């Protein structure tokens, strides 16, 4: 599904990704771990097409299509979803209006009819329930005055409504208490399917107790330096990242 080969990218003249390779098959869940500054968030931004993140080499394709040639909104419509580490507020624009505009754009791209207001409302309410967000959050401005946990659940709500092919969760677990973490994990697990893949970017193995990944990768110095299964995450938890740096060197 997602195929990344020798990806290199820089931000402000500083090379961050230095030849990253990653293959994600349909239905797979990959966890990416690594020390601060290793390029984890950059990977999400580069794949989703944020301006200011310049690709200097390599390739990335989604279902065989060249992701890097598409604009950010087109990548989203093709089914790439990024859950933000720090979701931004858009005051005055109601969550509902935002969600409808977003889902309409994505569905139009896929050749599907737009939801009418009533059935969309129904879906939005159901999704709210699934992520344990009270319905009045639909009427509030996008993330406006939301707590950290509420913002993360709002990201999940968007993911559910957009039904992406590939979801990248950028440290969605950071700053969450154990109950909120459980909600996020339940949301992801409920959405796991044979067609949908996930990349979980995380610092801690805690999330992986709830969402069990098929693969775990360590990103360091802009490259994947070690891959394994679930047990790799436990090993990292125990030993930290230092030993890998040593092993690679």
């Amino acid at each position, binding site marked *: 599904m997602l195929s990344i080969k020798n990806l290199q990218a820089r931000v402000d003249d500083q090379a961050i990704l230095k030849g990253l390779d990653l293959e994600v098959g349909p239905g797979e869940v990959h966890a990416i771990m690594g020390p601060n500054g290793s390029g984890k968030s950059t990977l999400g931004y580069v794949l989703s097409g944020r*301006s200011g993140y310049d690709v200097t080499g390599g390739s990335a394709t989604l279902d065989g299509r060249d992701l890097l040639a598409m604009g950010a*909104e087109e990548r989203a419509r093709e089914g790439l979803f990024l859950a933000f580490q720090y979701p931004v507020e858009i005051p005055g624009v109601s969550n509902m209006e935002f969600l409808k505009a*977003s889902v309409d754009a994505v569905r139009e791209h896929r050749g599907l009819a737009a939801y009418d207001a009533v059935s969309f409302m129904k879906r939005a309410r159901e999704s709210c329930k699934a992520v344990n967000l009270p319905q009045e959050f639909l009427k509030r401005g996008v993330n406006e005055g939301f707590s950290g946990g509420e913002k993360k659940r709002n990201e999940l709500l968007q993911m559910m409504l957009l039904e992406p092919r590939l979801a990248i969760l950028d440290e969605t677990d950071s700053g969450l208490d154990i109950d909120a973490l459980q909600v996020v994990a339940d949301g992801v697990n409920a959405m796991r399917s044979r067609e949908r893949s996930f990349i979980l970017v995380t610092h801690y193995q805690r999330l992986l107790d709830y969402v069990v990944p098929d693969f775990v990768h360590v990103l360091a110095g802009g490259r994947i330096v070690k891959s394994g299964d679930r047990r790799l995450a436990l090993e990292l938890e125990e030993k930290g990242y230092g030993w890998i740096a040593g092993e690679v060197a």
Partner: protein
Amino acid sequence: MSDQINAYLDHEYAAGFVTDIDAETLPPGLNEDVIRFISAKKDEPDWLLEWRLEAYRGWMTLREPQWAHVQHPPIDFNQVSYYSSPRSLDDRPKSLAEVDPELLRTYEKLGIPLHEQEALAGVAVDVVFDSVSVATTFKEKLKEAGVLFCPISEAVHAYPELVRKYLGSVVPRRDNFYAALNSAVFSDGSFVYIPKGLRCPMELSTYFRINEASTGQFERTLIIADEGSYVSYLEGCTAPMRDNNQLHAAVVELVALNDAQIKYSTVQNWYPGDKNGQGGIYNFVTKRGVCHRNSKISWTQVETGSAITWKYPSVVLRGDNSVGEFYSVALTNNLQQADTGTKMIHLGRNTRSTIISKGISAGRSQNAYRGLVRMNPGAEGARNYTQCDSLLIGDRCGAHTFPYIESKNASAVIEHEATTSKVSDDQLFLCQQRGIDPEKAVSMIVNGFCKEVFKELPMEFAVEAGKLLEVSLEGAVG
């Protein structure tokens, strides 16, 4: 800010067509003979000619105000033509059927429901084209209800006592440079009178359009809401694209007698000039209302056009318990400059005022809010609440806030809140990552920012205002 936000403000001004109509236009220049000509053209009574001449003499002693945060080359008031009338109107049309079909097509392009059958939406329209009122729809029906709605030139003849009593009663002839000029040369505008106790059965509306190349437009509107009455009035404005700057200096006077309510909404879309600042309307407007006991005046404005906007719709809260409101969205793009706001003058006891101002700056434009809240010694228990929010799009524009607060009564309460924010890259990227294209995203963000003001507009115009913002912002991101 980013390349994201800088490039796509190039749009064609949609109302920028010129109507090819045979017109009678006075050569440029201003002197007493010009005023006599205008007055004679309208067959005005002597008192009005004298009134105009007095205003002209006052104007000669006044100077252009220099305090506004706008810059423009000096205006040569002798290069402006002070009167233009479509020639075919020399014999004024008695009904719509007699109106020049070319004019009607102009209004169709503008989307004005001029034909009565199209006006089922319930809007009665007075149309001012260059200097003269062309047609007033629904006039007969309104008259049956007792509402007087007609061109002011007609009201001078039909309702001389009302005009004489109230003309200049809110904005005196020498109030300021532009008001004095208007008083001397005003050519037409709308007149409204709502009788005692009547709730006007439909929205009243005026569309102004400047067509002739170097014509100034100086319309004058007078609205009188008698005791216990209510009226909602809407004004829309457009002009063709011209390379030179055109002058617009209007005066609007509102009188709300005891227990009356006037709601005055404006959607101003004068030609803003091109993206290099060539051409565009210079809009110097004096709008003011006076509130008597228990009455209320509410100004709502959406200002997206004009090269320069100089405009402060104000309320003099003379009567006890009267209420003044000002809701404003002012959007500037490219090289537009706006200096706009309001004055709330509290004279009576327990008077209340609310000011909500939303300024949006894009391109290299400058957008200033200027407002005065004055509590006079007699304003026992008066209150004001002001909220001024500025939104910046890009990093080459400016937003400025100049609030003036004067309180001479210790029991008065004045609150002022102000914020400045930017449409950020983060917001735009969030929208894009959710599949929304950047133009739509900016328009959504700006509309969200203006929500509090749009909800004050009559329903159909709120939609129009939203679309207008979208068009005016085209090219603000790219």
